[in-house]
């Protein structure tokens, strides 16, 4: 298909698509185009048909083995039929059928689980739909990217995903990441100019970015999905399932400040007027006011804040119906804060602005560092209006504002500024700055009608009005308040052994008070500066080792060698990195990783992106975070609630613990399963456990092991340090020793005791059994003598053998019952943990019922060679199960009594 959209003149382009750069498409046209072209999405790659997915579960590696086993069974049976005709035994036939049933049951189970999992995962994806900001019918609106149509005018800002293939009409420093299209790893700059015939090369096109998403591996483990689902309920969206586990072992969390720890919602905190600092009242009904609302100094300050302010509430009724503090605003953050503050205290801001009409304005820019506007004054006093018809209001960086002032408004009178007032100003400015607040200065001037009569043409270009010798009014300081749950969450991370590091682009002076408030630097620890200030000595005299906390400036970080960074991270448990560039954020993350830590990076801005990618797990804010952040993150906090991270860590640890428990449980049946074979081969004792019974044990083991995944967390889960990924593996020496050692052998003992007893009761005393294998297994020996010289035919002694095997099987199942209960906890007593895991309880009951059915139901037993067992032969196993419970409770009790003791080091897995 030939594309010439990039070659056309813009006017022709507008015509072609019936659109307008200012007004965009009309809704009706957009609807028409949507109906014609369909949604703006890539036609999704062909999804595999369900039956193929089903087959994949039916013929996986393990399933394949079982199929082969079943086929071999049938072939053997076929040969037997050919050889012995009607005499052929049907054992192999039944075994084959049993195998197939098992494959089909487990295959369907995993298929349905997988289908469920992928449904959940899909639902996750739709939870953060990419959106685009477009102009339609002259209005800016947010729509989902699928609803974009050809001709829509799209606005894109830093960090946004390009929502469609677009022609650029206007741009400033626009760069796009085209790496997935062209392989260029550097961002490519884009601008309205047509530079190349090739659509990929020309600068005036940008393309729909689809990050190549592989999707999740076919076998999504159930437990990861379960946890992800659990987390999603708490508004913590897991995009990458492995992230759950990573979060659990996280030992360092690097958090960006703005928008992550703080609300990214500026609020006026303090004001300085009449030479006093007062706390601003931002409560809804102004019940906290600490100042008189009729003081002229305050009124003048607020008038300036109202007029010299471009922020406005979004004018839809829904927004206006909300409490002031939650309303959405157009305009700059600080101005919105001022707007909200004055709306709360004075009210009717919009009306006031309308009365005092703006006639001229110089907006804020970084060279001026001020903002000026001139208003027609409306008062009841006509003579005053006539004499001084205009008011000039200015706000900006306090020191710059003060420079332009010659007088200061104190207690209702204008006082000339002298050193005393400059000093007072400086103290107030420093004080507010040290609280980490953003300070603005305000001043005004009533223009006299002599120079500026009514109807005077103000011109912002020529500045035909005075900007000096103004009247200073006061200061207002704003703060981005901490998110409510942050201090608590950070304290929880602390107690869970996780170090929280602040990495912010903010100034150290702003960062430090916030980090103190958040608890990143705790109340009783000091930085080098604090010590110096307290002791009244210079910075050089303080031993840096005395300071547990430190605030590092980005420039200092740049000068540090990796070794110095390592030392820094090692020696200071509480660190704040301020004024860091994106590159330096990476340096911090790398430094943490060098320490062997698992690092989580939480951020909301594009400047956090590289560090998020570098970290073991990147976490994005769902509301304040940019599209790119959400795209790159492994996890998204949908409600921006920092406390969700604590839940995430807990769930991650829980999953690891539970997997460990599952594995421990599964391993315990190895020894009792192996012992009969060892005794068969080494001591010639007739086989105490058959293949079909082993198959049954494995089946039950798998089901039970899965139920452990639903186990609740132990009480110490958030009180222990994060696991060391190098030493504390999922399966470690202690786990293997523990499961194969005591527990395994108690089970084996129970099974063997039952086996020997049944053999003895039926005439084969243990002494007779040793070395009996050859005769026992010989079909030609039809008269095998037992200890009482009774003689057994082959079939008769096989019946006995199968009975013994059934009893051994039942013994293991009963012991595994106890093992399942002890595996519920690793440290706590089971009495403390309780039996609240309903699925596990269900499994316990199911197991017993299944065993009873298999053992006592006539036809089934014959088919699987499982024979009924007298109830008394359940008793040794019941006793052993009891023994296992006691043994493990005692072990756990001793571990709790002697933390870090020998038993813990050797047996705590």
């Amino acid at each position, binding site marked *: 298909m030939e594309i010439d959209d990039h070659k056309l003149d813009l006017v022709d382009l507008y015509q072609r698509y019936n659109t307008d750069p200012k007004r965009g498409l009309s809704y009706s046209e957009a609807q028409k185009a949507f109906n014609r072209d369909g949604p703006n999405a890539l036609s999704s790659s062909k999804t595999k048909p369900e039956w193929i997915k089903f087959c994949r579960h039916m013929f996986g590696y393990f399933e394949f083995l079982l199929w082969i086993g079943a086929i071999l069974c049938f072939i053997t049976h076929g040969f037997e039929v050919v050889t012995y005709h*009607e*005499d052929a*035994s049907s054992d192999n036939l039944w075994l084959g059928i049993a195998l197939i049933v098992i494959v089909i049951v487990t295959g369907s189970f995993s298929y349905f689980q997988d289908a469920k999992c992928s449904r959940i995962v899909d639902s996750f994806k739709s939870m953060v739909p990419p959106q685009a900001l477009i102009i339609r019918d002259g209005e800016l609106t947010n729509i989902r990217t699928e609803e974009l149509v050809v001709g829509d005018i799209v606005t894109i800002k830093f960090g946004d995903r390009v929502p469609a293939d677009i022609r650029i009409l206007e741009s400033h420093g626009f760069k796009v990441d085209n790496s997935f299209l062209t392989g260029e790893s550097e961002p490519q700059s884009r601008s309205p100019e047509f530079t190349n015939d090739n659509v990929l090369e020309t600068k005036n096109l940008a393309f729909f970015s689809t990050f190549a998403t592989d999707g999740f591996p076919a076998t999504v483990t159930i437990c990861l999905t379960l946890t992800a689902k659990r987390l999603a309920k708490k508004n913590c969206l897991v995009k990458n399932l492995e992230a759950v586990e990573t979060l659990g072992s996280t030992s360092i969390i690097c958090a960006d400040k703005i928008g992550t720890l703080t609300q990214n919602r500026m609020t006026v905190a303090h004001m300085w007027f009449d030479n006093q600092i007062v706390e601003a009242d931002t409560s809804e009904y102004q019940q906290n006011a600490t100042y008189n609302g009729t003081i002229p100094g305050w009124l003048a300050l607020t008038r300036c804040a109202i007029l010299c302010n471009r922020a406005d509430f979004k004018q839809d009724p829904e927004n206006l119906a909300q409490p002031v503090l939650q309303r959405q605003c157009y305009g700059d953050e600080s101005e919105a804060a001022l707007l909200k503050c004055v709306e709360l205290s004075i009210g009717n801001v919009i009306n006031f602005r309308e009365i005092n009409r703006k006639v001229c304005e110089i907006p804020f820019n970084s060279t001026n560092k001020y903002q000026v506007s001139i208003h027609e004054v409306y008062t009841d006093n006509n003579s005053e209006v006539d004499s001084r018809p205009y008011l000039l209001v200015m706000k900006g960086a306090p020191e710059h504002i003060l420079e332009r002032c010659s007088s200061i408004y104190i207690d209702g009178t204008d006082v000339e500024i002298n050193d005393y007032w400059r000093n007072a100003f400086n103290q107030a400015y420093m004080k507010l700055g040290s609280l980490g607040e953003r300070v603005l200065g305000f001043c005004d001037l009533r223009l006299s009608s002599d120079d500026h009569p009514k109807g005077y043409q103000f011109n912002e270009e020529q500045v035909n009005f005075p900007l000096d010798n103004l009247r200073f009014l006061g200061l207002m300081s704003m703060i981005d308040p901490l998110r409510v749950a942050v201090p608590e969450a950070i304290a929880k991370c602390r107690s869970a052994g996780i170090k929280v590091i602040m990495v912010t682009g903010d100034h150290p002076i702003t960062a430090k008070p916030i980090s103190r408030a958040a608890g990143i630097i705790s109340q009783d620890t000091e930085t080098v500066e604090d010590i110096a200030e307290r002791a009244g000595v210079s910075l050089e005299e303080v031993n840096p080792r005395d300071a547990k906390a430190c605030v590092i400036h980005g420039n200092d970080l740049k000068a540090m060698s990796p070794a110095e960074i390592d030392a820094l991270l090692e020696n200071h448990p509480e660190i704040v990195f301020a004024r860091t560039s994106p590159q330096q954020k990476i340096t911090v993350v790398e430094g943490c990783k060098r320490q062997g830590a698992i690092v989580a990076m939480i951020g909301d801005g594009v400047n956090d992106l590289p560090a998020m990618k570098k970290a073991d797990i990147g976490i994005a804010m769902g509301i304040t975070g940019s599209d790119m952040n959400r795209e790159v993150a492994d996890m998204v906090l949908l409600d921006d609630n920092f406390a969700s991270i604590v839940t995430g860590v807990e769930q991650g640890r829980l999953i690891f613990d539970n997997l460990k428990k599952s594995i421990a449980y599964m391993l315990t049946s190895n020894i009792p399963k192996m012992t009969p074979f060892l005794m068969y081969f080494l001591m010639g004792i007739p086989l105490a456990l058959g293949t079909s019974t082993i198959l049954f044990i494995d089946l039950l083991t798998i089901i039970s092991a899965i139920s452990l995944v639903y186990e609740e967390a132990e009480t110490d889960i958030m009180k222990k340090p994060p696991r060391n990924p190098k030493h504390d593996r999922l399966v470690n*020496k202690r786990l293997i020793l523990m499961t194969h*050692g*005591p527990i395994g*052998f*108690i089970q084996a*003992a129970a099974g*063997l*005791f039952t086996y*020997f*007893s*049944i053999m*003895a*009761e*039926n*005439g084969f*005393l*243990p002494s007779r059994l040793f070395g009996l294998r*050859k*005769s026992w*297994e*010989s079909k*030609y*020996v*039809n*008269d095998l*003598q*037992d*200890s*009482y*010289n*009774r*003689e*057994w*035919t*082959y*079939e*008769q002694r096989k*019946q*006995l053998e199968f*009975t013994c095997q059934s009893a051994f099987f039942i013994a293991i199942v009963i012991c595994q019952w106890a093992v399942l209960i002890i595996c519920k906890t690793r440290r706590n007593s089971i009495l403390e943990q309780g039996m609240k895991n309903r699925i596990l309880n269900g499994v316990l009951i199911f197991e017993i019922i299944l065993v009873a059915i298999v053992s006592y139901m*006539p036809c089934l037993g*014959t088919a699987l060679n499982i*024979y009924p067992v007298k109830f008394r032969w359940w008793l*040794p196993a019941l006793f052993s199960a009891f023994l296992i419970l006691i043994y493990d409770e005692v072990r756990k009790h001793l571990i709790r009594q002697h933390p870090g003791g*020998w038993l813990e080091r*050797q047996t705590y897995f």
Partner: protein
Amino acid sequence: MGGRVSSFMNALYNPKRKQFLGRDGAGWTKLGVFYFFFYLGLAGFFCAMLAVFMALSPRDRPRYYLEESRMATRSNPLSPGLGFRPQPEADKNLIIIDKNARPNEPNVYAKSLDQYLQIFYWKEDKVEKAESDDEDDDPRERPVPTRKFIINKPGDCTNATQYGFAKGKPCVLVKMNKIVGFKPKPGAPDGEKKSYISICKTNSTAASAVYVHCYGEYPADEDNIGNITYISENGRDTKCGALETSWFPYEGKINREDKYQAPYIWVQFNSPSPNILINVVCRVYGQNIDFDKKTGRAITRFQIYVKDLPQQATSRLNGDI
């Protein structure tokens, strides 16, 4: 690669910290002591429990016998199998008769039969006098004289003629399995009475014995099996051998000793076809003896092979080898 090997070796033995598999000597010792005592305790407990169980077990007959024992299940009624001798190896049921062997040459089958008879039938009664003056003795403890089973006219089936093996007319010992408490009833199961009468030419219920009949398993075997003589306790017959029911039931050991001698018959194959494998099935008939070929109830199976190659052929064959 070298790094991997060295790191593996390091994991195996770390000379710096004197650790073998991640534990130093003291660590291993402590762990060893812990597990030693744990397993010692477990094994001790296991053995003690087993010993207690054994001590409580009956001495002369198993706790479960007849239908109570696992010999019988829901689908398989209690019914004795048959046994045959000689069976020098447990995993074979083939009896080879070498017609060309010299008569005094040792024969494994004859030796096996010798041993069998020696163990179970040449028992000496304990001399009662030795302990008779001890009056306090529990009468049950006193030795009971054994009722000896003897075949009156064994014919060829003696040690002297290597049980017929030297003559190429092998005698095979066939007996019924000993089952504590089981007494066979003469006759045949319902539905088989007619064929039983035609086979054994004996009227069922009147007789005092259960009868054993041997035949070729497949038609070809029937052709090759030739004449059979059944040598029973009280006579010879060409149709069936008799096991007198007066020998039954087996009541278990007496004072832990097996005093019981089970009846048996000799089945002598007078003219088995040479150089061909013959599958033989022997079956016992009794009213309460259930027959099932597949599960081996009431039967025993063995194979006989008579080697009768001309001398020359043998030597030529040997030469080839």
